């Protein structure tokens, strides 16, 4: 066999191999509208998370401390505790709430305590390294503090019988940091049943 023929066979074989591990078509795979109502399981679903986030944002924007404020309200999120028996990524919930509230133009979020190291590193780099234009560089001691703290919890209760019913309660609370007073709170309830 000539060298060129051997080389052609090797190239074709490797191309066929690559095709075998590429995307597959057909089968039972289909795209689903992520905004649709998910009824595949009676557990807390992605659409429940998104719907709860939207409902909470709508309620928060009507809270007097935000609605009546003439300035943009600064909030720090401490997190949502998952007190259910299921694994639920509550960071996803708070991220959706933060994004939608920022979109309203009425609220801004202070960096979380967990992000503080990265934030201080960035400020020190600009203010102390001597690499940046001192007139434009961020300065130490100029971070804007949050006026309010947002925290919450997700709880669930299951009733088993002929019909399995699961109730989820998503609670959010807003506290005045200075006064340590709760200034707003709301509960979003979701109940799912299966086995009819």
């Amino acid at each position, binding site marked *: 066999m000539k060298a060129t023929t051997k080389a052609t066979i090797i190239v074709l074989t490797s191309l066929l191999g690559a095709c075998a591990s590429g995307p597959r078509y057909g089968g039972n795979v289909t795209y689903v509208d992520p905004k649709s109502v998910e009824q595949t399981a009676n557990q807390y679903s992605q659409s429940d998370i998104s719907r709860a986030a939207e409902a909470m944002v709508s309620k928060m924007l009507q809270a007097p401390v935000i609605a009546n404020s003439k300035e943009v309200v600064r909030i720090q999120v401490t997190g949502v505790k998952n007190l259910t028996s299921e694994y639920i990524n509550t960071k996803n919930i708070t991220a959706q709430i933060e994004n939608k509230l920022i*979109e309203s133009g009425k609220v801004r979020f202070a960096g979380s305590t967990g992000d503080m190291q990265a934030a201080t590193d960035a400020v020190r780099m600009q203010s102390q390294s001597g690499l940046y234009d001192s007139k434009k560089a961020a300065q130490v001691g100029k971070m804007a503090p949050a006026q309010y703290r947002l925290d919450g919890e997700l709880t669930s209760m299951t009733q088993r019988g002929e019909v399995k019913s699961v109730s989820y309660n998503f609670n959010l609370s807003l506290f005045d940091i200075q006064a340590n007073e709760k200034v707003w709170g709301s509960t979003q309830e979701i109940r799912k049943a299966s086995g009819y």
Partner: protein
Amino acid sequence: MSSVVSAQDTKESKLRRSGSTGSVKLTDLRAVVRNGLLTVQATLENDSSRTTPINYRFKWLDDSKMKVTDDLNWNPVNLFGGQTIDIVGVAPTPMATDFIIELNGSN
């Protein structure tokens, strides 16, 4: 209906239906700007004697009828026979000056 919705708009023109929603009537529609955000309340009535599952969502638009946010999630609700409910939507941004209510019959 307040001035935020044109007087020429009929109630039904603010509704976009899909699926089987014939038994669900829009009996009242109100819109006000509250604290800079458009707030809408729609009253829906199930004309049928049977429970009708529907999904609804608000679509927020600017003066040019362009969407100002991504599509929101559908909200499921079971309307009992003859039941009337009020659904309320608060625009997520002050850019929203108009709206459409999407109604989907899930059966």
